[in-house]
């Protein structure tokens, strides 16, 4: 690293690094004794990241809209009374005596137009978030948990246990995930929990491999040896000492893969192998529009039935990826700061 100052070339001085210390400049004597958890610090870093916060707001808004789209009743009790969607997402409107026809262009009454069965696309897009978003979050939670345990065991014990466990992963990686998900859905049939299971079955392998790699690094640390020397059991060493220090990349990976799952679910819906054909799931909605676009109904093209559901998927996945990048930077930046402070991590 070098910097030019007049005719003298200064080496060993990195101007960039000093700038990185800027956020620490409110340092005082008393702060010396303060401690801050790594997650607090990461959150502070994350909040400063404008694009990541934008992503967070969009995801929060979309989740809220999906939740409030129609009332939710659990066992006869209404737990969520709001109904933001102007129409029932599955109602065929002219059958209800309303003056609505199929493929009506967007208007004030129907902001996103109506689809081929004269259903209100705006209501369907709002409501459809429920499927994609909930499947995305459930799958990522479950797969991350499975991958964490699997990878931790493989990485910690090593040897032939590791060897066998990793060969199984190689098998899963030999197929494109979507292909396996398709076969699994074909085996189990269409449906919500079938989709969750299919994406869980293909999703955990990535986390397992990631965590295993991290564990291999972390377990060489002296505090692990210390814990063992004090007589801690394997389970305690793994889940109390090793895993918490290896989990940061898992969080990044999880936030980035929610988008992947949502796109996968929609892709299956688009292929007609996701949820039943009339459901308001975003991908399934697109499946019904392909024919009309490609074959082109006489005269006008009902672009709105394609643009809006797909746009919803894109917006959500994009925001999720912004969040993921933000988390990645926040956790990375923290490591950078540690180095700048003298490197005793």
């Amino acid at each position, binding site marked *: 690293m070098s910097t030019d100052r007049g005719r003298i070339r200064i080496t060993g001085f990195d101007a960039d690094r000093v700038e990185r210390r800027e956020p620490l400049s409110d340092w005082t004597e008393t702060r010396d004794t303060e401690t801050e958890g790594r997650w607090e610090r990461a959150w502070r870093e994350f909040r400063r990241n404008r694009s990541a916060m934008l992503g967070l707001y969009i995801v929060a808004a979309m989740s809220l809209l999906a939740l409030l789209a129609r009332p939710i009743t659990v066992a006869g009790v209404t737990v969520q009374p709001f109904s933001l969607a102007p129409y029932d997402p599955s109602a065929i409107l002219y059958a209800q005596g309303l003056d609505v026809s199929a493929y009506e262009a967007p208007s004030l009454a129907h902001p996103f137009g109506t689809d081929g069965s004269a259903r209100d696309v705006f209501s369907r897009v709002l409501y459809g978030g429920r499927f994609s978003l909930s499947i995305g979050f459930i799958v990522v939670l479950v797969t991350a948990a499975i991958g964490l345990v699997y990878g931790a065991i493989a990485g910690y014990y090593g040897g032939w246990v590791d060897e066998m466990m990793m060969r199984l992963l190689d098998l899963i990686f030999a197929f494109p995930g979507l*292909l396996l998900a398709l076969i699994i859905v074909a085996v189990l049939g269409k449906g919500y929990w079938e989709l969750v299971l299919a994406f869980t079955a293909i999703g955990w392998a990535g986390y397992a491999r990631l965590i295993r790699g991290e564990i291999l690094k972390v377990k060489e640390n002296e505090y692990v040896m210390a814990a063992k020397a004090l007589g801690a059991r394997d389970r305690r060493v793994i889940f109390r000492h090793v895993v918490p220090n290896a989990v940061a990349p898992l969080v990044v990976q999880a936030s980035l893969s929610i988008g992947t799952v949502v796109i996968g679910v929609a892709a299956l819906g688009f292929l007609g192998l996701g949820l039943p054909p009339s459901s308001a799931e975003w991908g399934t909605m697109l499946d019904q529009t392909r024919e009309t676009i490609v074959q082109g109904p006489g005269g006008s093209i009902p672009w709105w039935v394609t643009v809006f559901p797909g746009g919803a998927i894109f917006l959500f996945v994009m925001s999720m990826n912004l969040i993921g990048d933000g988390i990645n930077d926040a956790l990375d930046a923290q490591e950078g700061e540690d180095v700048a402070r003298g490197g005793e991590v």
Partner: protein
Amino acid sequence: MSLRRFIAVRVAATVPILFGVSVLTFALVHLTPGDPIDQMVALNPQISAAEEAAIRARYGLDGPVWQQYLTWITNVLQGDLGTVISVDQPVLPYILARLPETVALGLFGWAIALLIAIPAGIYAAVNKDTLGDDLSRVFALSGISLPNFWLGLMLILVFALWLDLWPVLAPDKPLLSPEMLWYLVLPGVTIGTASSATLMRVMRSSMAEEMNKQYVTAARAKGLPERTVVLKHVLRNSLISVTTIAAFLTASIFAGAVVVEQVFAWPGLGRAFVGAIVGREVDLIMAITLFTGVTIILANLLADIMYAVLDPRIRYD
């Protein structure tokens, strides 16, 4: 370990994985409730139980599962992949007839991905933290976030229906005619966009990493023009990781083909696969799955070997 030994070990290691892939393929498909015979029987209720058993025996669908596996794998190794029952045609020619379509689509997508990713990645790395770099970041992020089926539909909507630059449906011409190659641009862009976004980020970060190395300072110090430094010294070294990633992208390109072929009604393997799933064509599902698995394993093997050959510093362990 010498390079030759490394390659030999790596090739030997793929054999058990190939075996595992065949077992997994078979196991997955045979968990499927119902087979084409069930559908036939449902459509023709007058078939007696004895006739049904005879049909099952003819297609090897009787006997315990492990026996069916052994029969199947023996046949596969002899080049007999079974029958597409609905059209009563052997699987192998059925697949081979559709393979060129998918390969053409995949190569097109790959070429488009590389054409966008490499120059954009170089530009972003050289002009780090400028407006161009930010734009490339936005492009990469959108590319990864775009569902490919929606991108395909939007391209049809804009370029085929509104601007009328492309035909809406694939022209019924041989694959290598100019009309077909022109038509391939839209599905090619659709399939290549996500890959190009990934590749571009890899290109950028590996370029940026190389730019900080001492040989770059040395090259600049001896007075080479920046252009030569970047395009001759840095580019070569950073292409190593890009080549390997490109080989790994085979899997995502095939997964893309399944969806994109559906969007553009392209008569390739991906569309055949979806058809096979809907029609429960057991032999065809297994054949395409096995074929994909083997292709991906070989592509990964190639990537590993290429990496070892291109980068002599790599440790083989």
